């Protein structure tokens, strides 16, 4: 029970960290004013950490919870954009990590996550608006590459501190997930 509670608590901390990072990057002025929507993607650092050290279920859970938070604070449209982007990012990062022979670097995984996050959001926007809005794609691709390199480097820098969560290396169980929802 102690281990389950600790796992749930650590996941809660990661979720909170993901939310705070999203809020902080929202305070940063637009990086390229003529192309809105370019963000640092700092929350992706938490997602990547979960993928590398806590398992894919933890990563999906943190992504889902963050999208839920967006839904509660900014409504359905923002939720759909966040969820679509997060799902695509986690999906491509999982796919990349499954190619064990490739051994992609932190930066490459981060870049792919950032780029596909943007693609997912453009897809959601297209769905909502009823028309393709991929005119932004070239700039968002470039931005994803740059931001992905930055967040990948940031992950590498903070890893020594994050590695102090030893219990997260065990895969979460369903009861852990349910307990987490009960606690929040």
């Amino acid at each position, binding site marked *: 029970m102690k281990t389950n509670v600790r796992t749930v608590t650590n996941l809660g901390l990661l979720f909170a960290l993901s939310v705070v990072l999203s809020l902080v990057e929202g305070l940063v002025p*637009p990086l390229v*004013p*003529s*192309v*809105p*929507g370019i963000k640092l993607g700092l929350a992706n650092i938490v997602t990547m950490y979960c993928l*590398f*050290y806590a398992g894919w279920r933890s990563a999906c859970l943190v992504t889902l919870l963050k999208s839920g938070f967006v839904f509660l604070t*900014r*409504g359905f*449209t*923002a939720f759909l*954009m966040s969820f679509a982007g997060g799902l695509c990012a986690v999906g491509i990062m999982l796919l990349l990590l499954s190619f064990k022979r490739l*051994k*992609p*670097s*932190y*930066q*490459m*995984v981060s*870049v792919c996550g950032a*780029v596909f996050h943007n693609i997912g959001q453009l897809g959601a*926007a297209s769905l*909502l*608006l*009823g*028309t393709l*809005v991929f*005119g*932004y*794609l*070239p*700039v968002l*691709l*470039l931005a994803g*590459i740059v931001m992905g390199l930055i967040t990948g480097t940031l992950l*590498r820098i903070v890893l020594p501190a994050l590695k102090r969560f030893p219990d997260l*290396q065990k895969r979460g169980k369903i009861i852990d997930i349910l307990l987490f929802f009960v606690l929040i």
Partner: protein
Amino acid sequence: MAERKSTLHRWELIALAAVAAVAVAVFLLMRRGPGTNLEARIYHSGELVKTVDLDRVPDGEIDLPGEQKVHFEVKDHQIRFARVDCPDKICEQAGFLKKEGDIAVCMPNQYHVKLYSKGQGANG
């Protein structure tokens, strides 16, 4: 989890450079369209609600019938979102649209405006 390389492998660098090059090329090609003989098409939830001839409409604000939250401004044959009631103002930050293919989107209000050559099909 095994430790990973902290810098990019050579194949990763090549792949990223190729993607970046393609993105730049596509961006430049998309920006090659003319800046005249354009019309702005305003859509709400995928439905065309108004077409603005940028060569004929005088400078000023454009309102949509029955819409209080979203306004547009035309200036020097360009158009932009103006005085939009939305939480993030991303649409206003897109600024003035001036070339064929330029697009600005307001997700919370589900509006988007895109520039087309006059007479071009809706999805062209």
